[in-house]
């Protein structure tokens, strides 16, 4: 592919494990590609499809979501809810023409600075192979975004429901 292409990746990291893990990569002075821009949330369970779609809309070439390892979540099981949501989000992205290489959901603990760097490195490499993300649907994406986000939320909600409460019917 294009050698000069430097993908832009948005990383949404949970405060307790993954953000601290990314900090550790820093305090350990590990080098990894500068392609990632990190945004912090309290828990990976906070990440909703809208945030991911927004990133692609704003020109990201990839999105990385990272939380605590299962069992280690600061909020007991917020990350399990992330895990349940991930396949749905991934399917949705594929449906609107976003290659699977561009979306990754991982676990990084506060002590895994090195692992965080490696994940970013790998993701940059993978995305370089598929090339820049052109808004394949053009402006259409902007138009459908709200719609898609809403339906994604509904789908996700339906999935939660299987393990959760009934709609009161």
């Amino acid at each position, binding site marked *: 592919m294009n050698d000069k292409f430097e993908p832009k990746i948005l990383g949404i990291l949970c405060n307790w494990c993954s953000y601290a893990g990314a900090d550790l990569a*820093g305090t350990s002075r590990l080098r990894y590609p500068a392609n990632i821009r990190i945004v912090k949330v309290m828990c990976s*369970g906070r990440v909703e499809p809208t945030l991911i779609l927004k990133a692609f809309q*704003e020109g990201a070439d990839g999105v990385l979501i990272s939380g605590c390892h299962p069992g280690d979540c600061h909020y007991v099981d917020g990350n399990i809810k992330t895990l349940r949501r991930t396949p749905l989000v991934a399917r949705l992205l594929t449906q609107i023409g976003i290659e699977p290489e561009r979306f990754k959901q991982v676990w990084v603990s506060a002590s895994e600075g090195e692992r965080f760097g490696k994940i970013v490195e790998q993701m940059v490499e993978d995305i370089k192979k598929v090339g820049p993300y052109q808004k394949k649907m053009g402006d259409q994406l902007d138009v459908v975004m709200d719609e898609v986000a809403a339906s994604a939320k509904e789908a996700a909600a339906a999935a939660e429901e299987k393990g959760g*409460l009934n*709609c009161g019917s």
Partner: protein
Amino acid sequence: MSDHKIGVYVCHCGSNINGVVNCAKVTEEIGKLGEVVVAKDYKYMCSDPGQEMIKNDIREKGLDRVVVAACSPRMHEPTFRRALEGAGLNGYLLEMANIREHVSWVTKDKEEATKKALSLVKGAVKRVKLHEPIEEREVPVTNTTLVLGGGISGIQAALQVAEAGHKVYLIEQKQYIGGNMAKFDKTFPTLDCAACILTPKMVDVGQSPNIELYTSSEVIKVDGYVGNFTVTVREKPRYINHDKCTGCGDCASACIMKNRIPHEFDEGLSKRSAAYIPFPQAVPLKAVIDDENCLLLTRKKCTLACVKACGAKAINFNQHETIHEFKVGSIILATGFDLFDAKRSPQYGYGKYPNVINGLQFERMTNASGPTSGHITLADGTEPKSVAVIHCVGSRDENYNKYCSRVCCMSSVKFAHLVKDHCDAEVYEFYIDMRTFGKGYEEFYNRVQEEGVHFIRGKGAEVAQKDGRLVVKAEDTLLGQYREIPVDMVILNTALEPRVDAEKVAQTLGISRSGDGFFMESHIKLDPVTTTTDGIYLAGCCQSPKDIPDSVAQGSAAAAQSLAIIATGKVKISPISASIDSEQCAGCQICIGLCTYRAIKLNEETLRAEINEAVCKGCGTCAAGCPSGAIKVSHFNDDQLLAQIEGVLA
């Protein structure tokens, strides 16, 4: 929308940031953004002059939003929040851009780093516009402390909190306190007898009116937050009525299983009964019945000789486990370490050759109240004529533990001295590097060298048996030769490892572990006592291998943290929580199933969900799942996150 007045402050952090990121350029570019009325860079933003600069600008230029581009918010967000508050601005009108840990320290290329820093700052500027003032909640503190683990660190912490006049619950998994130190004979470098210095402290714990001691107990659940934890503890039955037991040991002598069960306290070098007193100086000095070996409890068939022997009528086979609940303000973790199992390195013959022992077994052997009454003996009862001590078994080794266990060089030297002292055998120390870093340690090493101990620089590679004797194979690296040294006894000085249940404990308490498996501190240098969870502190070997002086010091430090919380009487807790716009809520109840803390309930009248903010922890999982977008998480709402995403990708 009214215009904001934003001040942006870019920190050089000496050359930490400025050495890679062109701070002046970032400042210049950011200054061009709309609503940014001040953009400045400065050498150390967290210094007093740096903070004063921000405060002055807020006062003089009427800033209503502040962005600081510097280190990780995990480091200095509270510092800058205080600065804002000092100038009369709500602390949550601040946003930090992490251009050190996430940029300058991980990027080599200066241009790329500058570009990345700029986009992170842009994200912060976009986000901060949408920030809202939030009031931090202050809650009163329960003035009790829970100490988990009754080894030397836990004892030290418990005593210190208790001496300051506050209540302590001391929870110990074993039937007695004292931990590993209680098993030692002498302690380096002064050769104090471990029991002589530890026993008085153990007795103090037993007698302190402020300490409630629970042995045979473990924590099964922790709820709440700093200042207000609720801890659930399970106490196993001892089948002995503590109030009646006099600790006379008559039950132990009468027990049919007498001398049939390997005694853990003697590291398997002696045998005990199923009813027994852990050791003569045990606190509490009460008998215990081991439910894994007691014939009555395992097979329901026994002559009950112990019951007959007990004059105090203290034995009660109807005891059950008890669940206790404690309200505490803080928790001190002092759960200690496990010893590396030398069987995992079969090349040393541990478990195969009876005269290959580990360090703790040697401690028991040299202890006057130990299984051999303080005599160093081989399996056949004779004294060894030569002894090898192998360092670093399971430590400094990628196959097991990468780290140095820190205490083994010194304890090995101590072993050598004790051998010389007890039986005058030849001693060979196989070491990689001698690490004798503490006060009086090098001097002790020097003294033992003069006692005629052979120090061989080379890791013991293998222990074999040849012609009835043990042979240590190693390279004498200073000589540059392969050597086989015949000895009668080999002491393997094994690694200190995280306890086998460390993962479970970390999950129960909601704290992190570092890569080596030990509990993780907030900052390895500047905050080695606190964890990332407020109100939970660390002491002793559960954080990393330590010697006794360091364990005691950290125990005191953890106590000081607990006392500080009690002294202030109140703590600030995170104001980040979710709320529901009842106009938008459709009453679908999906959020209710998503909330782990059961903070959301359906209002039966309005048929809308409601959040109890006191219970909510602010994770935001409910907001992400709400199909109608009715849930808002303060400081992490959709608009703020979307704005930040837009900014960082611009």
